[in-house]
């Protein structure tokens, strides 16, 4: 059995311990956001956050992830109650086909947690590992900047933010 903590919930999975996290998330836990893109850590569409760091779930075997905090895009909010990053991507309409977007968002989530007010160059440099084929880059950059603003305002507000980001 492999024990994984995903979006705050513990799961015991009866799977091959060398299974990449991507397949555990998608096939065992029914989470759609992390996507298979290359299986090689070259495109970033499988990106999730582990202990605050963005990682390629397609090349991370589950046996190495026991006891770690795994966050997927599903952990940031829902379509009805989107988190700050999700709101920002909706407000900027930052998707075309959208297949790469969850990976982009999780990398941005890790960036904004570590650096709440990144420069444009810092955002670009962080997202360098993630590919978008539709050419949505300008909107993705705007959405990450907007999310930084939303998160800062949420942090500054006296009452806790309602979104799941935090």
């Amino acid at each position, binding site marked *: 059995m492999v024990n994984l903590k995903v979006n705050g919930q513990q799961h015991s999975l009866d799977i091959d311990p060398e299974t990449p996290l991507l397949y555990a998330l998608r096939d065992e836990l029914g989470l759609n956001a992390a996507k298979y893109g290359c299986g090689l850590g070259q495109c970033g569409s499988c990106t999730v956050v582990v202990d605050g760091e963005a990682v390629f779930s397609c090349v991370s075997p589950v046996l190495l992830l026991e006891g770690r905090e795994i966050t997927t895009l599903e952990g940031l909010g829902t379509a009805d109650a*989107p988190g700050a990053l999700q709101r920002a991507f909706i407000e900027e309409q930052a998707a075309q086909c*959208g297949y790469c977007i969850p990976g982009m968002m999780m990398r941005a989530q890790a960036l904004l947690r570590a650096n709440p007010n990144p420069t444009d160059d810092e955002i*670009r440099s962080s997202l360098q590992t993630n590919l978008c084929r539709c*050419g949505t880059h*300008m909107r993705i950059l705007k959405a990450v900047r907007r999310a930084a603003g939303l998160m800062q305002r949420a942090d500054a507000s006296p009452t806790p933010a309602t979104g799941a980001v935090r």
Partner: protein
Amino acid sequence: MSAELSRRGLLGVGGALVLGFTLPLRAQEAGQSATPPAKAPPLPGSLKTTPELDAWLRIDAQGAVTLFTGKVELGQGVRTAVMQIAAEELEVPMERIQLVSGDTGRTPNEGYTAGSQSMQESGTAIRHAAAQVRELLIGRAAGQLGLDAGSLRAEQGAVIAADGRRLSFGELVTGLDLHVKAQPESRLKAPDQFRVMGQPVPRVDIPAKVTGGAAYVQDMRPEGMVHARVVRPPAPGARLALLDSSAAEALPGVLGVVRDGSFLAVVAEREWQAIKAMRALAAGARWEGGPGLPEQRDLFATMRALPTESYSILDKNAPVPGTAKELRATYTRQYQAHGSIGPSCALAQFQDGVMTVWTHSQGVYPLRGALSEMLRMPAEQVRCIHVEGSGCYGHNGADDVAADAVLVARAMPGRPIRLQWMREQEQGWEPLSPAMITEAGGKLDAQGRIINWDYGVWSNTHNTRPGPAGNLLAAQHLAEPFTPATPRPAPQPAGAGDRNAIPLYTFPNAQVMHHFIPQMPLRVSALRGLGAFMNVFSIESFMDELADAAGADPVEFRLRHLEDERGRAVIQLAAEKFGWGKGRPAPGIGHGFGFARYKNYAAYCAVAAEVTVERETGRVRPLRVVAAVDAGQVINPDGLRNQVEGAIIQSTSWTLYESVGFTPNGLTSVDWSTYPMMRFNAVPRQMEVHMIDRPGMPFLGAGETGQGPAAAAIGNAVARAAGQRLRDLPMTREKIKAAIGV
């Protein structure tokens, strides 16, 4: 309802996936096969082929509207756009519309979602159908209220009288027969009355995509689903000689191996098990044969040596004396890939004699034809349902993976089979965009006007879509293989390899030749824009070369030769917003311009670009890109802007980085390290897309209009920044360094 069906299927709620229902084919099939009566005036858009109003929209007794389109979402926003059109003309809130798209069991047959034609074809049909249904509802209300129809108006899903009496569409629709043929003329709303069209309505598909909703065929997970993977030959044309599948079959979770000739696949309970079994199966396969590919360094010589069919597509002769200068140039482009981020995927289930496949194909009806031929099943027993995939940009692996999935499903009746390609399979087996050669010649008079234009383009076909079963990859690998269709050139004005080979400029003498190459050294098909990307790049590069020879400003030089007023307007707007000609760029920085009207009848686009070239590395950095677009009546300005922004970045990536690698033994570009594309560090620092809206004018397809002009603008800017013209795409760092002698 298909939406309910797919939702149940996706979530696995309520037990088994509902597949064994009776397909409501009859009415649809009758509609699709109907031909418009002879001599009647032509019906607008796709009403020509599917004239019945209820094939496009239906209203239930609660006033809920179901809209049907044969066009499918590819990430271009078509779902939102057609819903806006219907909401506008029918006078219902968008929230009350449910859209069904691309389902051979339910929707009109609109061929492929390709060629930037969705708005002209489906958008136009839906606009007219919605307007005609609205008028039928008003007419019915007039009868019930005893009032003149002219005194009534439709609003928010109801018909309202001047005295305030109100009948909802739900009340009115009972007993109203919408299974009637559309009329050629409709009472369309005037542009100044638009509430929804022309507005930047948020895309209906984005919330699910940014929250982990089930948004793609890759996300389907019906009860009982199992995972399949294919094992492909090591090179095109290789045949499976020997197979030892015992190691693969002994692995945990493996349910079976499917082999038919050289088609080979494995099925397992879990996805990772299927991937491991695929590797074990590949290790047990021995392949032989396969014709050699050309040496990549000899590609263009190889192409020139192949037999051609040559067609004159423009021959305009009005001899003008007094040639002052004459120029010639040759441009080349390597094979390029669609390179979808998500490898192709399909889900198929064979149950009760019916094969159902959920697919991200661009054409569910043509795919159904091909699959039924391959499976030797009647078309009525094959149903293709579109579910979104990763962005496709043309004919990628979507149809081929659907063929793979149905072959596996046929061998395992009852089980829903999910089959996704691996990255190396996507990269190694998708139909590529053909390598191309163009040659341009021009003569200038003493006043710097072009008095002769002479142009030729050499290309394979840009269309090997199914259609015929032989165009499916797996069908070519079967023990009884199907033969690919003989490629044919596509007629002008759309053309294919010669798309946009005829410039929109006016020259007194102009000859344009299309040299069609039937033989295909590598498998090729449609990539966004087809030949327009290379032809516009070539024409617009050569216009700059001629402008330099004439000592003219490139923008002024274009306007000097362009009579089309809408074309002139986008050029002037892009130049003005860019600040063209204001100040000299610093050393190492170049400004470039490109313009075209896609297919010479779709949207107009002009692009101005500023780039820097690092001499030491040959690296190009786009700094600023400004575009202007005229797409006729704009349905969703934010959607249009998103499409053109994407076109600019994708085309810039093609122009600077992308080239399929191969040796005589096969393809060598099989992932993102061997097929590099643009990453964030090279994305322009600034981008602006300006629109010229034309309220009331016909929709002009815009999904591909940016590809050519963006490539030309980047290429022309590189030529000025580097001080050397590069005519071979992609303009890699190595080529730039070689050109500037670093």
